[in-house]
């Protein structure tokens, strides 16, 4: 049996209402859980980019990417392992403002974690942290004892490390 790994799938597509449903259906059909999903604009005008993280085997990820590419509005899909990409996630922590003054450690935690304070109000303040999942989890663990009012973490965003000319490949694909 092939081993499971974390793969980042990047999908370049037309901006289409039904496409997200079509793509998520491909995972659903194969019982593969999407760990994280992010949809945004890409470097090319009017082309969307999906970043999907899954934990599966390489054989399955190949199969899935093949099926994704088959969708009419998909221009191109790629997959990478973690070592091949620069990736990060973002998180927001909402914390009671009184703690900022009562608990000195909190300021140190913020400094040491290279996170930043986005806003401070009379009742609460918000810390933003971008980075690897482990860094966010570490910060979460440190803040937890003081009480976190709200926590949210985004999906992964990533770009490939190698100088793979995704853009030129795409433009070629769009021309042909």
């Amino acid at each position, binding site marked *: 049996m092939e081993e499971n790994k974390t793969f980042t799938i990047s999908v370049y*597509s037309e901006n289409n209402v*039904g496409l997200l449903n079509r793509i998520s*259906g491909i995972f659903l*059909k194969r019982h593969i859980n999407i760990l994280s999903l992010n949809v945004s604009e890409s470097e090319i005008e009017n082309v969307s980019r999906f970043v999907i993280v899954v934990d599966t085997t390489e054989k399955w990820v190949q*199969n899935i990417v093949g099926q994704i590419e088959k969708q009419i509005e998909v221009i191109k899909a790629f997959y990478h392992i973690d070592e091949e990409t620069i990736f990060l996630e973002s998180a927001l922590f909402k914390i009671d403002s009184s703690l900022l003054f009562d608990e000195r450690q909190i300021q140190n935690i913020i400094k040491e974690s290279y996170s930043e304070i986005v806003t401070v109000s009379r009742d609460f303040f918000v810390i933003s942290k971008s980075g690897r999942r482990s860094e966010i989890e570490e910060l979460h663990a440190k803040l937890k004892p003081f009480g976190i009012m709200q926590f949210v973490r985004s999906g992964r965003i990533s770009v490939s490390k190698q100088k793979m000319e995704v853009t030129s490949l795409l433009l070629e694909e769009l021309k*042909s």
Partner: protein
Amino acid sequence: MKISGAEAVIRCLLAEGVDLVYGYPGGAIMPVYDELYKFQDQLHHVLVRHEQGAAHAAQGFARATGKVGVAIATSGPGATNLVTGIADAQIDSTPMVCITGQVGKHLLGSDAFQETDIIGISTPVTKWNYQITEADEIPEIMAKAFYIARSGRPGPVLVDITKNAQFDTLDFSYKKCNDIRSYHPKPVLKINKVQESAEIINKAKKPMIIFGQGIILSKAEEELKALIEKSGIPAAWTILGLSALPTEHELNVGMVGMHGNYGPNVLTNECDVLIALGMRFDDRVTGNLATYAKQAKVIHFEIDPAEIDKNVKTEVAVLADLKEALTALLPLIEKNSHEEWHNEFKKKYEIELDAVINEELAPTNGKGISMGETIEMINKHSNGDAIMVSDVGQHQMFTCRYAKFNTTKSNVTSGGLGTMGFALPAAIGAKMGRPDREVVAVIGDGGFQMNIQELGTIYQTKVPVKIVVLNNEFLGMVRQWQELFFDYRYASTVMTNPNFCAIAEGYYIKARKVTKREELDEAVAEMIASKDSYFLEVMVEKENNVFPMIPTGASVSDIRLS
């Protein structure tokens, strides 16, 4: 000049060369039906008795003609009733455009009467789908729908049109679609891949071809024939590839897969080069993948990149339209006869003849009529020129195993999805698409009752299809599995059937029932000779089994003869 969205739909269909559609009216599609009424001299609408029948009829039409089949239904239940046919067309790569009505745009998402999210429901089983909510979208979307349905690996497309878009007006102009920037249906043939394949094929000592529907879809029947005749390579087929090569061709070695022929199955695991042409290594073809053709170099000619290495690892993959690829391959292939290797197939065929075929075609020991001999009788009277439309089950396997075919696009059956109830409406579509051909639907007593209401369509349209029900008073294939793998526990497979002939006669279709072997010849002759539709019920031996058989999970070389 402004026309209504509904009229635009009709004008789009006409611009795509459609002159026949299947459907069933209802509230949300009424504006389109009103236009169908006005255009009835140019566009013939066939009123089916259930929307599932419309979908299967459109499929039958598409499979027999190679053109895009069209089905129309209303919103809600009308649309959901199409879904089985759409799923069937998706897995069997059948070009089809389904048009459904939808509640008005202002009601979307409000749980309005007969509102259903058909886009959501049909997404996993369509090649593409789209909801039109404004009249002026109609021409462009319809053009895309037909282009997507027919190009590359064909498939079903669903266009859902809200009622307001049917009523509203637009400035109509139609431009056929032949390019979508994110869609590349025809991969560019890489000639070096063809050369690599040719080298391997020329060196092969025991090469074998398995061809699928890709040959038919790309109209590469002549190229296939030229290839096997020049190379001397034995050619086997999948169920959907059947009829692409005449049955009688001496290099046609039969069917692969679960109920395929003994030789091509066993020899799949002995060949040194396996050349797959337009087929997808379905599990019913390969049996256990871990023991499938491991000794062979696999060369895969295929139009759909997602099929390459999906199930079977290839040595060389040629991504291309089959006709184009085979045309490029042919001049590179050296003439050969592979006589000794071909003899292996002949020897295996003798074994199958003794163990299975002779008994099936001429049962001994006072056994009742067999399905195989009924098919053989149809061969005799149709001379192998009929389009055979089979349903799903034992009779389907017997039809595919024993029917003779002289020409392509003559085997219409539900392969991938295995949809019982497919054959009766599909036969209607096939006959309307090819009125010049004899069309015989072969159906089991179970499947016949899954879309039996389409007898009404036959009566109303007078379409002269011939219907043969092979009645063993069982859901035969499931019963066979119960016998073999569930120790004869016949759970819910015994059928207490009605008087089928009386039902057919109720629809004013000439009907006849055969219970004795002596009557079979004359009855089939009468059926084929009939100018009108004809219903023939043949009471067959109740507990016959289809053999050979590769049990689920077994290797192709462990195929059972009994």
